[in-house]
């Protein structure tokens, strides 16, 4: 039951590579719906895994899995209608890789064994590379090459980190079970030297994949060159999976009494990411790259929130959910813009408000949300993270955090204003269509809804996730 969550998309993904395009599209949407049902069912009933040494049903994994699955349900129908407007020779590869991508990400979310987690994250690189390269242009090739090479180095370093963590069980610790659950249970007996070394390598390794500065260099290229549905998935789901890897090791560090060490590293990388993103967003000529830098910024915010601990932990988990919803919505809106204007340059897309009024609504709504303004959830989560930072005694870091966020909002606002109200073009290449408007709107509305009404099980899952490392909602 639990394993079927990732076996289903992996199997159908392989199948979809060979199916005719029309059938493949149906399979994509059907599997997306089925995957969400399976996820929700196992989330509510938490069945025991068949392979308990390798997979687990921990709350952190389910949180990431739920977000991934929900976003995928919105992206799948969108990509069907997006693909209809594009001339693409290799659409079966696109459909198959989307499903395989979903499968590997679900596997990463459910993994309890460090090596299974590592394998799943490596597999996400392999199956998402064709998605980035799908347009076969010179720039797409460059983006894919950077993506594969940089992430491979990251993955290799993460493996080294896991070697060190295994070693912390002692030189003759061959009998001990190697799962996150077992490691957490025996955290106090682990060798701190190897744990520290291991955390640094895992942070740098998975941080590359998560897009933390200064290892983020692949991210803007990959996100801007991939077709928009794939960018939405990369940004809204993949980054979370890499974050989950870091989070699990951070949990282990906190339980072993080394939380200060790992926390300050996370704060450092988080602040650096926000700052770098702010600087690069300011004069960004390409709106998809702007969204990609915004993802780097938000990953920085999450790392920062986890690092400060306390109330910041709850804020960070909330931020993870809302960032995924808003950012994938923004990327889907950006897909409509790419189709409509035929360009990713801000200078080429004036007058969105007149030409694409409904896309304007979702794009502008997404901008308001991601900038941390109410009524969207990012407002709440960033406020909680800030409160947490002050409560746990990080006033300087909190000041830097606010300053960097202002930088990001300023850059973002300039671009969005120019695109929305700037001098408009004469005509559109592709008109907007209801089926390509509904998914981004659904994602936005979900963010608003979750802000005013949080379902009890979801609240419990978040609280369970952070309770392990001492985070509470009451600070």
């Amino acid at each position, binding site marked *: 039951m639990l394993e079927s969550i990732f076996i289903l998309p992996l199997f159908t993904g392989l199948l979809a590579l060979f199916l005719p395009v029309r059938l493949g599209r149906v399979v994509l949407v059907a599997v997306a719906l089925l995957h969400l049902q399976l996820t929700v069912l196992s989330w509510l009933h938490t069945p025991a895994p068949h392979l308990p040494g390798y997979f687990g049903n921990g709350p952190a994994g389910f949180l990431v899995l739920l977000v991934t699955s929900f976003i995928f349900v919105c992206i799948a129908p969108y990509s069907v209608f997006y693909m209809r407007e594009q001339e693409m020779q290799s659409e079966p590869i696109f459909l198959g890789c989307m499903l395989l991508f979903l499968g590997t990400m679900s596997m990463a979310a459910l993994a309890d064994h460090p090596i299974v987690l590592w394998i799943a994250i490596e597999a996400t690189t392999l199956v998402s590379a064709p998605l980035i390269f799908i347009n076969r242009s010179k720039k797409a090739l460059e983006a894919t*090459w950077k993506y594969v090479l940089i992430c491979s180095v990251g993955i290799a370093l993460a493996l080294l980190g896991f070697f060190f963590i295994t070693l912390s069980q002692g030189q003759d610790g061959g009998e001990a079970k190697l799962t996150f659950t077992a490691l957490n249970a025996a955290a106090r007996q682990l060798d701190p030297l190897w744990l520290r070394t291991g955390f640094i390598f895992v942070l740098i390794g998975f941080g590359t994949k998560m897009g933390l500065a200064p290892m983020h260099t692949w991210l803007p290229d990959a996100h801007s060159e991939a077709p928009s549905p794939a960018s939405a998935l990369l940004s809204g789901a993949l980054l979370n999976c890499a974050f989950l890897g870091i989070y699990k090791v951070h949990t282990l560090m906190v339980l072993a009494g080394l939380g200060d060490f790992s926390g300050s590293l996370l704060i450092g990388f988080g602040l650096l990411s926000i700052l770098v993103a702010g600087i690069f967003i300011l004069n960004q000529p390409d709106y998809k790259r702007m969204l990609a830098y915004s993802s780097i910024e938000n990953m920085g915010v999450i790392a920062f929130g986890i690092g400060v601990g306390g109330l910041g932990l709850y804020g960070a988990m909330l931020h993870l959910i809302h960032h995924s919803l808003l950012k994938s919505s923004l990327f889907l809106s950006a897909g409509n813009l790419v189709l409509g204007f035929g360009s990713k340059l801000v200078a080429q897309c004036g007058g969105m408000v007149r030409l694409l009024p409904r896309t304007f609504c979702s794009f502008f709504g997404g901008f308001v949300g991601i900038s941390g303004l109410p009524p969207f959830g990012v407002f709440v989560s960033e406020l909680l993270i800030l409160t947490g930072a002050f409560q746990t005694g990080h006033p300087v870091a909190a000041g830097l955090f606010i300053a960097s966020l202002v930088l990001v909002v300023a850059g973002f606002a300039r671009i969005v204003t120019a695109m929305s109200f700037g001098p408009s073009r004469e005509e559109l290449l592709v008109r907007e269509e209801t089926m390509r408007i509904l998914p981004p709107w659904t994602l936005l509305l979900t963010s608003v809804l979750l802000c005013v009404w949080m379902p009890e099980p979801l609240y419990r899952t978040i609280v369970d996730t952070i309770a392990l490392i001492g985070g509470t909602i009451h600070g």
Partner: protein
Amino acid sequence: MITGIDVILVAILLSVLLSLASSRMMALVKIMALQGAMVSIAPLLLDPQSRLGNEGILYFQLMLLIKAAIIPGLLYLAVTRVAIKREVEPIVGYHASLAVGLGLILLSATITRRLGIALSGDSSLLLITAITTLGGGLFLMMSRTKAITQVIGYLMLENGIYLVGTALTKHAHNLYLVEFGVLLDLLVGVMIMGIILHNINRAFDDVDTAYLGQLKD
């Protein structure tokens, strides 16, 4: 006393230095084949007793096949078929690279001495070799312009990680941990296939990552 493992390890160290100093693509590929063979033999000599299980022997053969035959074979194909110019085209000169390599050996010796308390005595040379190989690979990736040299650098980095794993976890063989490093070879394979299969060669006149420099801020 000089044992078999010492000879192998010194040979691996020399192969790292040689690869940093070599100016010909074909020579680099041959060095990598040799290094792959020695890296996959090393664990066998290190711990002759514990490796004699059926799975161990199978795995050892698989490693040798991949590291010493398949990957270098693919690299050879890439160099001959994709009409890569035969020179390595470094950013950092050969002599400077060699000096960096020697510096890396010193650095690894220092790191090993720091970590030495936690290690059993006989694996210190192994750890020095492993860290040098790892660092040498990273350096090669950064200091050469061609896409294929970056892949070779990555291969060396991966060899280093395999050695670190062997050095550190040799007492916990029942965990099957180091063995998963073989999946990194999959990534290497994919990268080389990317170079061979039309794409990079068709999109660029040369497999030179200096051409891969259009996307930036």
